[in-house]
């Protein structure tokens, strides 16, 4: 083996390269790698957090939906009840109105009939008087017989 000063030259070069690597290569590369590792870890953690948040949001959305459904059902129930009530009230009011109208109709009819009766009575009275006048034209004084006729009319 031919050992010579190359040995020393190589040792010196080795030392220089190692120091260069230690000072200018290793730290920036390592810090870049570590910074990226931290970033990735952060990213993974936040992704996990987001998943958890999403689960929570879904759960609360389901709850709210259930609440809303229940509320809607109760509102529909109340509306149905109210409808039935309104219909009942309307029915009652209509009944009353009908009764009232019928009653007034009866009253009107009654009044009409009374008036007709009265007319009829007047006409009968007139007719009776006319007839009696014809019969009694010659014998009876009109004024004297009038009270009898009145009496007749009252009996009708």
């Amino acid at each position, binding site marked *: *083996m*031919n*050992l*010579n*000063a*190359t*040995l*020393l*030259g*190589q*040792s010196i*070069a*080795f*030392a*220089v*390269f*190692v120091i*260069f*690597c*230690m000072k*200018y*290569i*290793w730290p*920036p*590369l*390592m810090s*870049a*790698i570590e*910074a*990226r590792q931290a*970033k990735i870890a952060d990213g993974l953690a936040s992704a996990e957090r987001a998943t958890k948040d999403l689960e929570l949001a879904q759960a609360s959305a389901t709850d709210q939906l259930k609440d809303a459904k229940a509320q809607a059902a109760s509102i529909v129930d109340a509306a149905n009840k109210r409808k039935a009530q309104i219909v009942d009230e309307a029915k009652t009011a209509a009944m009353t109105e009908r009764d009232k109208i019928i009653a007034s109709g009866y009253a009107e009819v009654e009044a009409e009939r009374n008036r007709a009766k009265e007319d009829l009575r007047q006409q009968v009275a007139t007719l009776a008087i006319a007839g009696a006048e014809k019969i009694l034209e010659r014998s009876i004084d009109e004024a004297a017989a009038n009270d009898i006729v009145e009496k007749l009319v009252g009996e009708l």
Partner: protein
Amino acid sequence: MSASDTGGPQTSGDYITHHLHNLQVGDTSSFWHVNLDSLIFSIGLGILFCWIFRSVAKKATTGVPGKFQTFIEMTVEFVDSTVKDTFHGKSALIAPLSLTIFVWIIFMNTMDLIPVDWLPMASQAAGVEYMRVVPTTDPNITLGMSFSVFFLMIFYSIKMKGLGGFAKELTMQPFNHWAFIPVNLVMELVALIAKPISLGLRLFGNMYAGEMIFFLIALLGVWQLPLHFVWATFHIMVVILQAFIFMMLTVVYLSMSCEDH
């Protein structure tokens, strides 16, 4: 490409010897000369590593990264998790050290996959006689790195356990009795020194053997093509595996240095 095509030496032995010869500068009879080709390629690839990773690190975004940034980050995280699994102390040095070792050695080993004649031929054309392009097939390079690691092991041992603790570890194990101190010392020193030597030689041996097989395949003439492909495919595994082993053992040795027994 066969030996005769290179325009270099004629026999197979000469061809291989020529390819195994470093471009040396300095006083070759003493220690004080260098394998210029190994150093140039090793430092060049080190600068390439620094440039690529630095350019990504400068633009690194904490948001969605680009494909290249992702690739670099995967490498960094692979090294980081390997280090964290093995080294339990706290150190700002170990992880960048491991990254540098891993990527740099992969780059240097990958030079083995360039066809063995291309760069030597190009350099010969440019007038340079010898050129070895795979730095990790040079024991100076691998041992230079492993001895640096060894230095760090000693440094951490003393820093974590103190000089006394380190001395005690060398002298009071495995036989905890004062009479055994010389025996312990010999055993522990052998174990300690074996670590950087085996670390460096393992990488060197693997890459040297791989390169040697590329040379032998290159001698086959036209039949080298399918064989080269097969061996290169297999060698990709060796390239990465050896880089990983070097990094892993570095981390293991350093964590052993930091731990109290």
